């Protein structure tokens, strides 16, 4: 009552924290029995011991929209609104952007980018929610022609409810990456019955395609990358990595159990088994096993990657303050693709340096694992990133001195993989001692 008095909100959310959930005060029911001056009140049932943040946000958004729109619900059996009614009404089509929120990954700039993109195709934005929306704005949601489910973790529930109850069409493609942005625009134009723009598939909208095709990027081909994050960002990243940057995706996972099915499908397409876990140690173990050259992950993967001495870029929440930058830094749309190109390539050793370190290993300054464009010394981790004690190679395997010496000559960023492959090869062949010849044999064997 105090809060209502002091802030005079348009609506009130009432819920419990984990501890309050144990005490069972039923605050929602209590609030329902109070005099709140007639403002809508939404009581939240958030099981703190079985669900997590994204579910809580999705559920809250859903309950709030449901509570506010209840009076507008069309009678059962009434016809679905036609997504192309804008034509009959003589106005530009308009859509809602659902899902952007505070503490989401680059939501602020994604909204601006998508808004700008849609405007270019003659499409208006009706409501952006929850980011920046008031309860009064939520009441206008049904007046739009379609909903864009930009962040499925947060808006998936609302979108499917609006589709069921109001017959509103949903666009489910998340426009992160060139291919996804084009697919998103294609889906949206289909839903709104707009003619497809002639230049939709031209590559000039973003600089990523040319940057990626240019010969400076040839060395990116087949770089092994490990991806982990929320499902939407991880799936988008996997597509960009494999099809638009030419990386080899060697691990794909997410902590979003709600989107596990989509992630498994994306992983299967890449010939991988998806990793669905919220245990950072399991992620770290999978990362070490895959021995990637680049990690695209969350704030947590940054730590693991640092420990393993692997370059890393952040693609998803959880994030830290540096991933809420002052500058314009979307992930979505065509400018988002430009941002992604720069961000993901930056942590990698640059072409010439990679070559010279591979050639000459006796330098006093440019030592193994050194990335001088990052302006600091070699990684703090041991120079052998995937170091396992020789005894731990397992299966009675051990490395001979000349085998170890040969291994040390393999460039830093692929050494972990070569070590693993060679040990696998030795195990398959029943070798006990791995010498330099075994390493060359394994290299020839796995090049096929």
């Amino acid at each position, binding site marked *: 009552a105090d809060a209502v008095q002091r802030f005079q909100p348009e609506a009130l959310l009432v819920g419990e924290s984990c501890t309050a959930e144990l005490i069972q005060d039923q605050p929602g029911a209590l609030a329902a029995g109070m005099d709140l001056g007639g403002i809508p009140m939404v009581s939240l049932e958030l099981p703190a011991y079985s669900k997590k943040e994204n579910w809580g946000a999705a559920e809250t958004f859903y309950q709030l929209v449901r509570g506010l729109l209840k009076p507008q619900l069309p009678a059962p059996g009434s016809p679905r609104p036609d997504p192309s009614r804008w034509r009959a009404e003589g106005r530009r089509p308009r859509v809602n952007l659902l899902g952007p929120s505070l503490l989401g990954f680059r939501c602020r700039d994604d909204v601006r980018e998508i808004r700008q993109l849609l405007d270019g195709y003659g499409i208006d934005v009706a409501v952006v929610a929850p980011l920046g929306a008031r309860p009064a704005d939520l009441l206008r949601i049904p007046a739009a022609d379609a909903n864009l489910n930009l962040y499925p973790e947060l808006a998936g529930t609302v979108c499917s409810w609006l589709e069921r109850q109001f017959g509103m069409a949903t666009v489910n493609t998340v426009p992160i990456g060139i291919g996804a942005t084009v697919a998103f625009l294609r889906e949206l134009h289909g839903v709104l019955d707009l003619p497809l723009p002639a230049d939709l598939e031209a590559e000039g909208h973003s600089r990523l395609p040319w940057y990626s095709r240019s*010969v400076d990027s*040839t060395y990116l081909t087949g770089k092994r990358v490990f991806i982990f994050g929320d499902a939407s960002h991880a799936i988008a990243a996997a597509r960009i990595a494999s099809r638009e940057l030419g990386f080899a995706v060697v691990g794909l996972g997410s902590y979003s159990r709600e989107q596990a099915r989509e992630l498994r499908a994306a992983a299967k397409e890449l010939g991988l088994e998806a990793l669905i876990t919220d245990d950072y140690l399991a992620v770290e173990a999978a990362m070490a096993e895959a021995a990637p050259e680049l990690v695209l992950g969350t704030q947590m993967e940054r730590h693991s990657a640092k420990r393993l001495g692997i370059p890393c870029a952040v693609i998803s929440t959880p994030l830290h303050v540096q991933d809420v930058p002052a500058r314009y830094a979307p992930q979505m749309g065509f400018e988002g693709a430009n941002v992604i190109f720069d961000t993901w390539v930056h942590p990698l050793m640059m072409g*010439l340096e990679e070559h010279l370190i591979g*050639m000459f290993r006796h330098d006093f300054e440019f030592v193994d694992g050194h990335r001088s464009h990052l302006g600091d010394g070699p990684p703090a981790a041991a120079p052998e990133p995937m170091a396992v004690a020789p005894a731990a190679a397992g299966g009675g395997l051990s490395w001979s001195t000349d085998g170890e010496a040969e291994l040390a000559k393999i460039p830093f960023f692929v050494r972990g993989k070569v070590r693993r492959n060679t040990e696998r090869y030795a195990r398959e062949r029943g070798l006990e001692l791995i010498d330099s010849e075994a390493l060359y*044999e394994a290299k020839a064997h796995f090049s096929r």
Partner: protein
Amino acid sequence: MATGTAVEALPPPLKESGQREVFCGLTSIVWLHRRMPDAFFLVVGSRTCAHLIQSAAGVMIFAEPRFGTAILGERDLAGLADANEELDRLVAQLLARRPEIRTLFLVGSCPSEVIKLDLAKAAERLNRQHTGRVTVLNYSGSGIETTFTQGEDGALQALIPLMPRSEQSQLLIVGTLADAVEDRLVSLFHRLGIERVASLPPRRSTELPAVGPGTQLLLAQPFLSGTARALLDRGATLIRAPYPFGVEGSRAWMAAAAAAFGVPPAQVAEVLDPLVERGRRALAPHRDTLAGKRLFLMPDSQLEIPLARFLSRECGMDLVEVGTPYLDRQLMAEELALLPAGTQLSEGQHVDNQLARLRAARPDLVVCGLGLANPLEAEGMATKWSIELVFSPIHGIDQAADLAELFARPLRRRAALAFV
């Protein structure tokens, strides 16, 4: 070894001159400074030379500079300042800052050559001034005289007078090799029974190998005409062989050395044939990508002829044109004999004419420098930028697959990228 074509089966090479699209010899500094980290390369030239080196190598951030440019000013050109005094002052400054430098190369450029600044004299004088601390040498990397890798030829020639004399029997491998490749080749020569193997350039500029009548010379790089002749003048004997690219070339290269040391062929076969078999196996997947593809090589490093030989014979590529900045028929004889009949060579360059031939032929892969690579990609042609070949471990039987992969990669990348 498979029998090749007689050199007469090759049409006469196109000799062209006109606009050229190549590096000058100064660029050799980009890899030589890493091979010999205790050396410093001081270019005596203009701001243009400084820009060149900084654009090429400045992508790496150096805590300690390894190269620099003494930039000629108006006063130097007008003869108002004694260029030699200026140079002495600069060198003293440099050595005060970097006392650990053991060898200082004064590298001539177009401006210094045109005004005939006598860097050889300057090196002599500076040697006297800093005797016991640092050795000062000079060579020219000017664009007027040298193209790209010829800079290394110049630098190695400058080292030759400092090499001690020895009559001892030894194998001397000449040309910059990647450390791992060098170790590997040396250990294979040991297995063949060749005990004394030395390299030029060494890893430390002060640890120069000896040379003399007992020295058998094996060239690892094809661009070392001047160095080879200077070493022959010091009594060494040249081993004639194709260059160690690919399985076939590398085997022939090692076998030629073995023959020069009287190693029986049976022992050569015993050591090398398992490697050959394994090398062919590793090469197979890249051959699948490359076979039947049409290749056009623009002139750049003089590696073009051996690479064309490898790509056609071992990877099944068809050669459209093989350009080279300079053709030393003597040092290239074994390679020319292995080229497929009818291969069109071109020496020198008229880049517009060459581009016209290129566009008419529409090859599947163009080997060219970075100045042309992206423009050609934008025209829809796949390119492999050639500079990378000087910066990659590509020599030897064990590296044949890695070498092929450098050419297969752009084709695989083009097939892999899809934006819509």
